[in-house]
C-alpha cells in the first residue's frame, strides 16, 4: 500500500482533495474548484467589509450614527447577483450528476466491460464475480469478502488506462444501510436493504506499475495461478460511509485495478475452484 499512500498525500493535491482517478471525478473536482473560488471571494469580501465597518464605525461620541433604514437598489443587487451565480452553478452541475447517477440519461454509459455484485453486511463487503462466463447465477460465480479486483486495458507502461473501461457494481445490503465510498474515484452510494443500487466508475489509473515498481505492459500476466495478483500490496481503499453499527469504522475493502490479462488469469483460477466446489458439493 505504501506507494498509494504516498501518492495520496504528496502528489496531485487540489486544495485538500485526494488525487482523482476516475473520469467523472475530474468534472466533480472542477465544480469544487469553481465553488472554492466563488466562496473564497465572497468570504473575504464579507469579512473584510465587516471588519472595516467595525473599525470605522466604532463608538465615537463626537459623531451621531447615520440613519439608514435600507436601500431598494442594494437589496435588488445583492439578491439578483448571487441568484445568477448560484443558478449557474446548479445548471452547470446537472449534467455531471445525471451522467453519474441517472441510468436513463443519454450520457450514462451504455456498456460495462466489467460487472460485479456487492452485498454489504455488518461489517463486510461480499463481492460476487460472475466468473469466466461473465454471467451471474452460474456455477463459476465466486464470492470474496472485502476484495474488489477490476481489469483495465493499459495505455502505457506507467499504469495509465485507455479510456472507457466502465465497471458496474450492483450494490445491495443484507442488514442495515452501508455506503460504498471510494475516495480516489469520487464514488459514493448507499447500500440499502431491499433495493439494488447501480454504481459505475471508469478508473484511469492502475493500482500497480509492475512487480519491481517499474513498468508494466498490458499483455503481462505475471502469474498463472492468480497468486501474484492478490499479493500485490498496492490498492485503493474503500470505506463504509454510513453508520452501520459498532464495527462501522473497520469496514474496509481493497480495490485493485490491474491489467486485463492478469485479471483474467486470476478469474479463471477462482472460477475453476468454484466449479470444482459446486461439483464436489
Amino acid at each position: 500500500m505504501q506507494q498509494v499512500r504516498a501518492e495520496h498525500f504528496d502528489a496531485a493535491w487540489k486544495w485538500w482533495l485526494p488525487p482523482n482517478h476516475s473520469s467523472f471525478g475530474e468534472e466533480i473536482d472542477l465544480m469544487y474548484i469553481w465553488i472554492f473560488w466563488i466562496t473564497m471571494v465572497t468570504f473575504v469580501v464579507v469579512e473584510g467589509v465587516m471588519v472595516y465597518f467595525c473599525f470605522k464605525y466604532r463608538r465615537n461620541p463626537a459623531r451621531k450614527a447615520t440613519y439608514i433604514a435600507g436601500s431598494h437598489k442594494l437589496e435588488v443587487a445583492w439578491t439578483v447577483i448571487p441568484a445568477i451565480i448560484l443558478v449557474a452553478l446548479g445548471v452547470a452541475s446537472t449534467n455531471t450528476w445525471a451522467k453519474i447517477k441517472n441510468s436513463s440519461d443519454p450520457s450514462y454509459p451504455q456498456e460495462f466491460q466489467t460487472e460485479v455484485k456487492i452485498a454489504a453486511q455488518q461489517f463486510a463487503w461480499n463481492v460476487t464475480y460472475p466468473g469466466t462466463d461473465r454471467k451471474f447465477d452460474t456455477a463459476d460465480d465466486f464470492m470474496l469478502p472485502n476484495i474488489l479486483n477490476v481489469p483495465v486495458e493499459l495505455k502505457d507502461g506507467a499504469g495509465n488506462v485507455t479510456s472507457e473501461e466502465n465497471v458496474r457494481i450492483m450494490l445491495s445490503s443484507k442488514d442495515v444501510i452501508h455506503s460504498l465510498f471510494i475516495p480516489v474515484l469520487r464514488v459514493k452510494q448507499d447500500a440499502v436493504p431491499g433495493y439494488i443500487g447501480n454504481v459505475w466508475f471508469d478508473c484511469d489509473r492502475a493500482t500497480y506499475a509492475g512487480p519491481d515498481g517499474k513498468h508494466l505492459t498490458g499483455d503481462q500476466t505475471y502469474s498463472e495461478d492468480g497468486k501474484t495478483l492478490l499479493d500485490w500490496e498496492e490498492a485503493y481503499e474503500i470505506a463504509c460511509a454510513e453508520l452501520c453499527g459498532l464495527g462501522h469504522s473497520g469496514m474496509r475493502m481493497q480495490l485493485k485495478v490491474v491489467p486485463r490479462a492478469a485479471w483474467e488469469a486470476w478469474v479463471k483460477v477462482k472460477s475453476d475452484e468454484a466449479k470444482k466446489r459446486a461439483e464436489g458439493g
Partner: protein
Amino acid sequence: MSTTAAAPATAGHDAGHAHPELSFLRKWVFSTDHKVIGIQYLFSCIAMFLVGGLLALMVRWQVAYPAGAKPSEEKVQEWRDQGLSGAALNQAIAEFDEDKPFPILGELLWGEKLSKADINAGEVGEAGLFGNSNGMMPNEWYNVAFTMHASVMIFLVIIPILTGAFGNYVIPLQLGAKDMAFPFLNGLSYWTWFSALLVLVASFFVDPAGIGAGAGWTSYPPLSGVVSPSAGAGQTLWCIGVILGGTSSIMGSMNYITTIVNLRAPGLTLFRMPLTTWAAFITSILQLFATPVLSSAMAMLLFDRHMGTSFFLPEGLIFSEAPVPNAGGGQVILWQHIFWFYSHPAVYIMILPAMGIVSDVIAVWSRKPIFGYRPMVFSMSAIAGLGFVVWGHHMFQSGMNPVLGTTFMISTIMIALPSAVKVFNWLGTLWGGQITFSPPLLFALGFVSMFVIGGLSGIYMANAPFDIFIHDTYFIVAHIHYVLFTGSVMGIFAGIYHWYPKMFGRHMSDGLGKIHFWLTFSFMNGVFFPMHIIGLGGYPRRYASFRSYDFLQTYEGMNVFMTWCAIGLGLSQLFFLWNFLWSLVAGKKPTSDNPWHACSLEWSTQTPPPHGNWIGAVPTAYHGPYEYSHPNCKDEFAPQWMPMQRNDGGGGGASPTAPAVAASSAPPTAPH
C-alpha cells in the same frame, strides 16, 4: 386572554386577578407565568448544555485517541534495515503497540494499559471505573456519545433554549402582552419537555447489553428499527423522548402563534414587531407543521421495533445471521423522507430565532435601524417556505431517484439566497453606526462572521455531484457546527448577555463576558475549521477509529489538535457559567429600566418585570422598534412606547429616559 380582559386598564394586573399569594410551588415550579417558564427553560438548557458538552468531549477523546495504532512506514523500514523479514517482520508488526490512552483519564476510566506482549502472556490489568479495556474507550461508548451529544444539543439545548427560554421570556414583553395566550398550556409544555429530558437521560441507564441509543441522531432504520446490540432499550427510550420533546414543541408553537396574532399591544402592527418576535413567529409556524411528522415517524419506528409492524423493514432482512421475523414490505428510504421532512425545517428552527436575536442586538449596539427591515422579514419567510422543499439534499446518495436529486439541488441552492440577503443586511445595519463592542454585540458579530462560513459550506454540499464526495464526511460535521455552534450558540450567548439585566435585575460582568467571547471564538475555530480539511480528504464522520485506513493515518495530528481545542472550548465556558451564576447574586444593579437605551417594548417595564408584566395598562406602540439616531428626533433614540419627539417640537410624550409608567399615561386602550 382571560387574565387581562377582566382587568380595568388603570387598576393594575394583580387587582384584576384578585388571586391569593401563590405558594412557592405554584409560583416557581408549576408556574404559568411566561417569565418564570422562560427562566426554567434557560436554567435547564444551560445544565443540559454542560451534559451535551461533556459528551462532545468524549467523542473528541475517542476520535483522537483510538485503539489499534499501526507502525509507521519509517518504523517498518527500520525493522527491515535491522534484518527482519517474512514471518518475523509480520510478528513485529502484529505485536506493535503504541496505543496512547487519553492522558490520566484513560486509565482511570478504562483500566490499566498493558503492552500486547503482556496481554499475550495472559496478564490482566487493573480495571478502571467504567470497565477494563486497556485504557481505551470501547466503541459502544463512542457510538452512544455522538448519538446522545447530538440529541441532547438539538432537542434539549438549542431548540428549547431558543423557542422555550427566549421565546417565552421575550415574546410577550416585546408584544406588550401580559402573558402568553394560554398560560396553562405553556406550563404544560415545559413539563412535557422536562419529561423528555428525563426519558432521554434515562436512556443511558436502561440497557443491560449496551449503554444507550447508538444509531446516530438521525437513527436510520434498519439499524434503529430492529432490537439489536446497536439499538437496545436505550433506543426505545430515545424514540419516546423525542416524541415527548416534539409534543412540547407543538404546544409551545401553538401558544406563540396565538399570542403573536392576538395579543399585540395597541398600535403594534405586525410590521412594527422586533425581529426577535418575527423570528419566533415564523419558527413557530415551522414547528407546528413539521413536528407532528417527526412524532409520527418515531411512533412508526417504535411499532417496527416492538409491535411487529414493518414500515421501514424490507423483505429478507437478516440480522446477526437470523432473518428478522416481522420484516417485509417496508421501505428503508421512507424513514429518511419523513425524518428529513422534519429535520430540515428543524435546522431552521435552530437558526431563525438566533437570527432574530442577533438582529435586535446589532441594532441596539450600533444605534442603527435594521437595514432592510422588511427584506429581513421576507427572507426569513422565504427560508421557512423553501425549508419545506429541500429535505432531499440529505439523501442525494441514498438511492433516491436522481431526477429528484436535481430538483432538490436547485431548491437547496435557492435557500442559500435569503441567508445571503440576511448577512448583507446585517452588514448594512453596522454601516454608519456607533458600534459599542459589548459582550452581546461581540457574540452577535461572531454569529454573523461565522454563519457566513456555514452558509458558504452549504453551497458545496448543495452541489449534488460534489456532495457525492463530501457526503457523510467531516465536511458535513464542519458545516453543522459552523451553523449551529458558531451560529446558533453564539446567538444564544448574545441574547443572554443582552437580556440578562431585564431578566434578573443585575448586570453580568463585561470583562468576563469579553474573555468568554474571545476564548470561545478562538477555540471554536480551532475545533471546527480543520474539520473542513479532513472532510475534503475524505475522512468519514462517525468513525470510532481512523486506524484501519492508510489514507486516514495522516490526520492523527489534526485530530489531536482539534480535541485539545475542544477541551479549551469547554473550559472557556466556565467563564460564562461563573459570570452567569455569580451575577445573579452579586451583579451590579441596573440604574434604569432601559440600560441599553433600546426601543422595543420589553425595556418599557420594570426590571425585572412584575407578574403581569406591566403595572397598569400595557404600553402602546407608536412606531417601529428600531428608531435609533433618527435625524428628526430630538433624542438619540425614540422608544416604541412613546411618540417620537421631533426636533421641531412636534410629537409628544415624555423624554425616553423617563420611567416607563409615565409613558402609559397616553390614553389607555382597553387591551384586546
